[in-house]
């Protein structure tokens, strides 16, 4: 099971310049929430934004990471 810091680092490495805040929703370590601010989200639909992050973890979503709740924004606050 990846740690909160692992999840944060992997998102920030995969999306250069992004800032991720990762929290544990239940305390169990497998229901996580990531709030990600990334310039590259600009112009993408929410679906496309979330897919960029899901793609970082592949099959781990639904496996070791039971759930990853997401909120995506661009630095200027637009979605």
């Amino acid at each position, binding site marked *: 099971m990846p740690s909160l810091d692992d999840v944060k680092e992997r998102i920030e490495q995969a999306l250069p310049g992004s800032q991720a805040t990762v929290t544990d929703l239940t305390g169990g370590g497998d229901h996580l929430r990531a709030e990600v601010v990334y310039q590259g989200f600009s112009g993408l639909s929410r679906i496309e934004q*979330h897919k960029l992050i899901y793609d970082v973890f592949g099959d781990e979503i639904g496996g070791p990471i039971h759930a990853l709740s997401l909120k995506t924004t661009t630095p200027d606050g637009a979605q």
Partner: protein
Amino acid sequence: MNEQELRQDIREHLKQAIEGQRVMLFMKGTPDMPRCGFSARTVAMLDELGTDYAAMDILPHPLIRQELSELSGWPTIPQLFIGGELVGGCDIVTEMFESGELAQALGVEDNAGAAAPVPEQQPRPIQIGE
């Protein structure tokens, strides 16, 4: 039925549900008895808006979820489709619910479909091993 045929069969059911239903929710459990908090929240939002929707439980067989995620390119459950298009999972539906976009998406579809109303009919549940 071998696994290949079963996958094909499930995929056909899923496609029919996505294309045949104006509002189609794939979830864990049923609207009356959701088996996951995210599915429960999504059901609650749809119920709150008073929209008619069809729902399919993906839990009866692991291949249902695998095939759905391959079709949609979306790894998690629930998945909401409106007019045959993936709208998103619980997070996106929540954001759209709060901003009013969800009501709009459901309403716009109403007008667009006026020429050829799609009957609201629950899709046939997937029978494993029939």
